[in-house]
C-alpha cells in the first residue's frame, strides 16, 4: 500500500530509511522515526480496535502517552506483549501488531452487539446489573463478563528479557525536555550541579518540536537541539530519552523507567530490555508539560475524532495528515495552530470556535490565510461508524445552553481542543497540595511537601517567554544553593504569537430528542449518562464515582478524561470544581512493566543462594539438595536408583548402626565476648548460665517477651569471657538482632559484644556408635574417651594441621561430635572425616535422615518451635529456671500457659504400623463427629522410624501429658486421609538418653 496520507516533505522522520511492518496480517511501510500510530495513519488506517465495553470502533485520539484508544497486541522477536499504545510504540523493522477486542475481525466484530445492549451495561454494571437472579451469576453473567474482560492477551511464557536496576543520586532531577526542562537543566548545569534530564519520548524538545516559535534567532526545535547537544557534552549532566519518571516517592526518591530495547526488533546481546532507575534527588523540577483535553459531544469516540494537538504533531513530527477534510473544534487558540498547519500543507480546514468574537495574533494569522472560521459554533455529533464521515454542527447561544439549527457538513476528521490540563501527577504524588486555577480550569501544584517545583505548562504557564524566564531562574537558584556557583545565562530573544483567553465551555448539550453517547473516558466507555446515573444513585465523593463508573481507571489513567469528569460532577452537584476535588494521583504515571520493577531477581536469582564450603563435594557425590531458607543443603545422597525414602532410611540406619557425617555449617553461630557474657546468656536463656565451666557446652532455650519459644541451641564456654552460641539455621539472623537489641537498648550496662561467625566456621556432625573411633583417628593427640571428652564437653585441637573446635553434642540422639574448622578448611575436614571413617563404614547423611533421627528421639526443631509454643509444650519445662528472671518469664504465668490441660508434645504411631502420617494433619477423638470436628492437636513432624521400622510422628496435643496410650484419629482433609493412631511418648527411641552419654 502507498502511504496515501504522508505529506511529501517535512516532519522529523528519516525518509531514507523505509521500514516494513505488519498490522492485522497486512504488510505496510513506514519510515524510521515513525510510531506505529503515525505509520498506520500515513497508510490510511484509521480503525485500530474495538472498545472494551460496547465494542465500538476505535481509532487514534492522541499522539503519545495520553492515548486511550490505540492499544494493540505487539509481536516482537517471537514474543508477544499485550496493551501496547500504538502512539508510543516506535516503528522497527518487522514489527507486527494486531487489534484487540474484536472477533472475528476489526471490521466485522460480533461483540459490537454490546453496543446495542448498552442499556444493560450502565455505570456500576460490575456491581449490580448481573446480581439477580443469583444463580445466573456463575452460569451466565460472569462467563459473559469475563469473556468481555481485558484488553490484550498475556503470553504465559517465561519472559526471556533482562531488566536492570540502577541507583543514582543527583542534585537536580528534571522530568521532561520541553522548554522549561531544557532551560532549567541548562542553567543548573552551568552552575556545575549534577543534573539528570529525563524525557519520556524518543525525541527531546517537547512542544518545541511542534510550535511555531523562535528562540535566540533559531526555530524552537533548533534551539532545543543545540541545548541538548551542549548538555550531552557536560560531564555533570545525564540526558536520557525514552525515560519516564513515573513515581515520586518518599524523601525525594523518584523512579524512572528507561526503555532501552523496546524500539528495536530485538534486544541486543547483554543489553537489558528496560532499566529501572531509583533516583534520590536533592531538588526536583517537574517540567512535564500539559495534555490537551477534549470537548465532549455526541459520538465523540468515532474514529477520526482526535486531539487537535495530536493532529498537529502528526503533521509536524511525522509528516502525516490525519485527514483531508478536517474540522477543528476548539474553545481556545490552540485549534488555530492546528488549522494553520493544515493550511500550510494545502488542506482547507474549517474551524468551529465556541467563542463569539475572539481576537489574537494567532487568530489574525488564520484569518489572513483565508481559513474558514465559524464563531459560536459547536459540533453536536460526529457521524459515521468506522470513520467520521460528516458532523452535525450548530450555532450555540451565548449562555451555551441553546443549540441553533443543526447543519450537516462533510469532514473526515474532527480535531478537538478543549484547552490544556497541566500534568501534575508527579507533583501530586510528592504530596503537594494541588490547587484549582480558575484561569485555566485545571489543577496546578500548590504547597510543596518535598523538594519539588513545577515549571511551565505543568504549572499552568502557557506562554513560552514566561516559561523560559521562570525555568532559567529556578534552575539557577536551586543549583546555586547546592554548588554555590552563580553563572547567569543571558536570556535569549523569544518570538511567539500571542493568544487570547479560552472559553470555559467543555460539553455540548444534547439536541432535543437525541441521546447520543457523549464519552468522557474513551477506553472504559464511560459516558456523561453513566456519571449522571452514579450521582442519581447517591454517589457523591469523586473517589466513589470513579470506582463505580471506572472513570479514569483505564490504562491511560484518565489523562484526557478526569477533568471533564470533574466538570460534570461539579455541574450536576452545583459545586465548583475545587470543592469536588480530584482523585488521588498514584504511581505509576503510565503503566510500567512488572519485569522492570522486579529487575534481576528472577529465576535462580530470585533470592541469594548460600552454600557451605563443602557444597561442591556434595554435588560431586550425588547429593539431592533442599532449600533451607536461602541455604542449599543436601537432603540425601542418592545411590543408584534410590528414592528419597530409601536413601534417607539407609543414611539414618547407618548412623544408628555405624557412623554418619552431616554438614551442619548452616547452623547460626554467634561469638559472644566480654566480662558480662555469662550474665547476658543468663537473661536470654530460660536456664541458668552463671556457673557453666570453661570447656563445657549447654543446651538453652530462649523466649520472646510474650513467653513463646524463639529459638534453641547450644552455647559453649570457650574461655573465661568468650562464648560460642549456636542457633537454628532459620533464626540465626533474628537471634543476632535480638541480642543486639537487648545489649544496645535495654541493658547497655552489660559489657558484651556479639558478632555473627556463621560464615567463619564450617561444621560437620559425626554421629553414631562408631563416631568415637572416627574422632580418635582425626585427633590422635586428643583424649576422646568418655572421661576425657564427656557429653557436652569441648576441646580445641588440630585436624591434620587445621585449627579445630570439637564439641560433644548430639542432635541425632547417638554418641556424636561436632567438629568446626575455619571455613577455608571445610572441604579438607570433610574429606578427611570420610577418609578415616571409611573403615567404620561412615556415610554422609542429609537433612532427611537428620530429621528422622531427631524426630524418633523426640528432639524438637523448627516445626515444633514454630512461634506458637512455650517450653512446656515441648517438654522443655525442666529448662525453665524458677530462681532467676529472664526474657519472657513473666508471660509464662498467664492463665492459658499454666492450664492443666495445656498442649504438650507426644509421639504418634499408626495402629497398622504402616500408613505414613502427613505433616500438618489434625488429631481428633472421633473421626465421624459432625463438622466442625474439634481438633485437639496437630502433627508437627513425621518420619519412618529406622529403629522400629514403622511410621512415627511428633504431635502437639491438648492435655498431652495425660494422653499417652490413648487411641485417636489423624485426619488430613488435604490428603483425604483418616488414620487411627496411638499416642506414645515423644521419646520414641532411647528415652533415657543413654546413647549420647555412652
Amino acid at each position, binding site marked *: 500500500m502507498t502511504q496515501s496520507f504522508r505529506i511529501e516533505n517535512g516532519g522529523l522522520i528519516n525518509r531514507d530509511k523505509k521500514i516494513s511492518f505488519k498490522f492485522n496480517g497486512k504488510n505496510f511501510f513506514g519510515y524510521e522515526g515513525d510510531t506505529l500510530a503515525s505509520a498506520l495513519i500515513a497508510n490510511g488506517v484509521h480503525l485500530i480496535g474495538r472498545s472494551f465495553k460496547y465494542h465500538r470502533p476505535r481509532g487514534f485520539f492522541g499522539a503519545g502517552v495520553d492515548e486511550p484508544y490505540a492499544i494493540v497486541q505487539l509481536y516482537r522477536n517471537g514474543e508477544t506483549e499485550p496493551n501496547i499504545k500504538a502512539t508510543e510504540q516506535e516503528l522497527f523493522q518487522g514489527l507486527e501488531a494486531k487489534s484487540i477486542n474484536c472477533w472475528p475481525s476489526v471490521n466485522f466484530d460480533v461483540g459490537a452487539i454490546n453496543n446495542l445492549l448498552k442499556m444493560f451495561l450502565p455505570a456500576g454494571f*460490575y456491581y449490580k446489573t448481573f446480581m439477580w437472579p443469583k444463580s445466573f451469576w456463575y452460569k451466565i453473567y460472569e462467563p459473559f463478563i469475563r469473556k468481555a*474482560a481485558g484488553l*490484550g492477551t498475556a503470553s504465559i511464557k517465561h519472559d526471556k528479557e533482562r531488566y536492570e536496576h540502577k541507583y543514582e543520586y543527583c542534585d537536580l532531577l528534571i522530568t521532561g525536555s520541553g522548554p522549561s526542562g531544557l532551560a532549567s537543566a541548562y542553567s543548573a548545569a552551568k552552575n556545575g550541579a549534577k543534573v539528570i534530564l529525563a524525557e519520556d519520548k524518543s525525541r527531546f524538545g517537547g512542544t518545541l518540536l511542534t510550535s511555531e516559535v523562535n528562540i535566540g534567532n533559531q526555530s524552537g526545535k533548533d534551539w532545543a537541539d543545540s541545548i541538548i547537544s551542549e548538555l550531552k557534552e557536560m560531564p555533570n549532566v545525564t540526558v536520557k530519552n525514552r525515560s519516564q519518571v513515573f513515581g515520586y516517592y518518599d524523601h525525594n526518591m523518584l523512579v524512572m523507567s528507561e526503555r532501552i530495547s523496546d524500539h528495536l526488533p530485538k534486544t541486543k546481546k547483554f543489553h537489558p530490555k528496560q532499566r529501572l532507575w531509583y533516583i534520590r534527588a536533592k531538588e526536583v523540577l517537574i517540567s512535564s508539560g500539559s495534555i490537551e483535553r477534549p470537548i465532549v459531544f455526541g459520538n465523540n469516540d468515532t474514529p477520526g475524532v482526535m486531539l487537535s494537538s495530536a493532529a498537529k504533531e502528526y503533521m509536524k513530527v511525522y509528516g502525516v495528515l490525519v485527514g483531508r477534510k478536517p474540522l477543528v473544534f476548539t474553545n481556545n487558540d490552540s485549534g488555530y495552530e492546528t488549522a494553520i498547519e493544515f493550511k500550510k500543507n494545502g488542506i482547507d480546514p474549517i474551524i468551529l470556535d465556541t467563542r463569539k468574537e475572539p481576537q489574537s495574533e494567532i487568530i489574525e494569522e488564520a484569518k489572513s490565510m483565508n481559513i474558514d472560521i465559524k464563531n459560536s459554533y459547536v459540533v453536536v455529533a460526529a457521524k459515521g461508524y468506522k470513520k467520521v464521515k460528516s458532523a452535525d454542527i450548530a450555532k450555540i447561544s451565548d449562555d451555551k445552553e441553546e443549540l441553533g439549527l443543526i447543519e450537516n457538513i462533510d469532514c473526515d476528521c474532527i480535531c478537538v481542543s478543549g484547552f490544556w490540563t497541566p500534568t501534575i501527577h508527579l507533583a501530586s504524588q510528592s*504530596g503537594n497540595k494541588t490547587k484549582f486555577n480558575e484561569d485555566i480550569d485545571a489543577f496546578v501544584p500548590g504547597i510543596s511537601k518535598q523538594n519539588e517545583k513545577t515549571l511551565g505548562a505543568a504549572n499552568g504557564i502557557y506562554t513560552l517567554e514566561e516559561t523560559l524566564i521562570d525555568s532559567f531562574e529556578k534552575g539557577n537558584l536551586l543549583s546555586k544553593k547546592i554548588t554555590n556557583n552563580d553563572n547567569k545565562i543571558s536570556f535569549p530573544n523569544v518570538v511567539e504569537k500571542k493568544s487570547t483567553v479560552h472559553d470555559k465551555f467543555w460539553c455540548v448539550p444534547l439536541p432535543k430528542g437525541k441521546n447520543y453517547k457523549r464519552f468522557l473516558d474513551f477506553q472504559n466507555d464511560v459516558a456523561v449518562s453513566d456519571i449522571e446515573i452514579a450521582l442519581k444513585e447517591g454517589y457523591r465523593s469523586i473517589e466513589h464515582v470513579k470506582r463505580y463508573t471506572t472513570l479514569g481507571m483505564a490504562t491511560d489513567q484518565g489523562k484526557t478524561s478526569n477533568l471533564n469528569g470533574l466538570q460534570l460532577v461539579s455541574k450536576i452537584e452545583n459545586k465548583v470544581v475545587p470543592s469536588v476535588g480530584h482523585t488521588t494521583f498514584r504511581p*505509576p504515571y503510565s*503503566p510500567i512493566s*512488572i*519485569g522492570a*520493577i522486579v529487575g534481576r531477581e*528472577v529465576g535462580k536469582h530470585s533470592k541469594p543462594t548460600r552454600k557451605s564450603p563443602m557444597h561442591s563435594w556434595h554435588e560431586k557425590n550425588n547429593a539431592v539438595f533442599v532449600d533451607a531458607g536461602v541455604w542449599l543443603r543436601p537432603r540425601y545422597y542418592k545411590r543408584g536408583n534410590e528414592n528419597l525414602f530409601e536413601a534417607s532410611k539407609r543414611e539414618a540406619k547407618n548412623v544408628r548402626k555405624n557412623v554418619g557425617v552431616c554438614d551442619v555449617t548452616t547452623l547460626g553461630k554467634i561469638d559472644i565476648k566480654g566480662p558480662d557474657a555469662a550474665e547476658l546468656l543468663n537473661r536470654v536463656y530460660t536456664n541458668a548460665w552463671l556457673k557453666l565451666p570453661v570447656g563445657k557446652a549447654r543446651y538453652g532455650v530462649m523466649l520472646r517477651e510474650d513467653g513463646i519459644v524463639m529459638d534453641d541451641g547450644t552455647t559453649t564456654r570457650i574461655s573465661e569471657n568468650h562464648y560460642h552460641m549456636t542457633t537454628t539455621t532459620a533464626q540465626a539472623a533474628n537471634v543476632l538482632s535480638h541480642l543486639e537489641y537487648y545489649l544496645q537498648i535495654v541493658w547497655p550496662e552489660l559489657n558484651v559484644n556479639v558478632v555473627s561467625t556463621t560464615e567463619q566456621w564450617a561444621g560437620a556432625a559425626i554421629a553414631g556408635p562408631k563416631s568415637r573411633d572416627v574422632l580418635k583417628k582425626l585427633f590422635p593427640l586428643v583424649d576422646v574417651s568418655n572421661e576425657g571428652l564427656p557429653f557436652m564437653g569441648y576441646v580445641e585441637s588440630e585436624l591434620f594441621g587445621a585449627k579445630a573446635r570439637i564439641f560433644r553434642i548430639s542432635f541425632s540422639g547417638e554418641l556424636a561430635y561436632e567438629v568446626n574448622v575455619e571455613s577455608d578448611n571445610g572441604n579438607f575436614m570433610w574429606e578427611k572425616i570420610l577418609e578415616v571413617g571409611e573403615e567404620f563404614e561412615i556415610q554422609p547423611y542429609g537433612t532427611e535422615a537428620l530429621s528422622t533421627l531427631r524426630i524418633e528421639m523426640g528432639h524438637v526443631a523448627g516445626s515444633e518451635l514454630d512461634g506458637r509454643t512455650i517450653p512446656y509444650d515441648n517438654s522443655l519445662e525442666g529448662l525453665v529456671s524458677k530462681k532467676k528472671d529472664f526474657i519472657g518469664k513473666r508471660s509464662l504465668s498467664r492463665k492459658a500457659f499454666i492450664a492443666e490441660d495445656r498442649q504438650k508434645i507426644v509421639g504418634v504411631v499408626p495402629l497398622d504400623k504402616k500408613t505414613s502420617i502427613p505433616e500438618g494433619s489434625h488429631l481428633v477423638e472421633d473421626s465421624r463427629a459432625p463438622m466442625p470436628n474439634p481438633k485437639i492437636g496437630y502433627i508437627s513432624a513425621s518420619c519412618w522410624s529406622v529403629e522400629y521400622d514403622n511410621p512415627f510422628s511428633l504431635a502437639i496435643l491438648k492435655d498431652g501429658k495425660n494422653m499417652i496410650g490413648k487411641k485417636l484419629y489423624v485426619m488430613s482433609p488435604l490428603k483425604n486421609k483418616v488414620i487411627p493412631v496411638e499416642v506414645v511418648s515423644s521419646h520414641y527411641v532411647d528415652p533415657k538418653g543413654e546413647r549420647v552419654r555412652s
Partner: protein
Amino acid sequence: MTLPIETHLLQACVSEPVKPVLDNVVTFGAGHFYISQSDKGEMVMGGDLDGYNSYAQRGNLPTLQHVLTEGIAMMPFLSKLKMLRTWGGIMDMSMDGSPIIDKTHIEGLYLNCGWCYGGFKATPASGWTFAHTIAQDRVHDLNAGYSLNRFNTGHLLDEKGLGTKTWIS
C-alpha cells in the same frame, strides 16, 4: 482503653487488563503474595506491609518490588504485564495477627477490628458474628476465641507464629 493494635501500611497493585488467564485467587504462603484476576481483566496483586507504622496511605516502590518478585517466582509470565495502578491503605495490625470481635466493658461499645491485611474473605462470617454479639450483647461461640481478653490470658491465636512484631509479614 488501649487496643493491642498498630497501624501499618499495605500496598497493592493491579496490572493492565488482559484476557482471562487466571480463574482463581492464588496465594503464595511462603512468598507472601496473592493474586487474582478481576472481571475487568486486571491482575490484582499484593503481599507484604511496608514495614513501619504509618497512616500515610502512600507506600514506596521497593515493597512492591519485593512483592512482585515473589509474584514472578510463582508465575513468571507476570513479568511481561504492566503495572497500571498502585495504592496504599492503612491496616489495623493486631498483636497476634487475628481480629478482635468482642463486646467491651463499656456498655454499647463493641469491637470488630484488628483484621490486619486479611479479612475480606471473612467478611460474611465476621458480620454475622458481630451482629449476633451486638443483638444479644454476648459473643457467639464462633467468635468467642476472638476476644480482647486473650491478650491477658494467653489464649492467643497467632496462626503465623510471628508474635508482637506486627510489621514482619
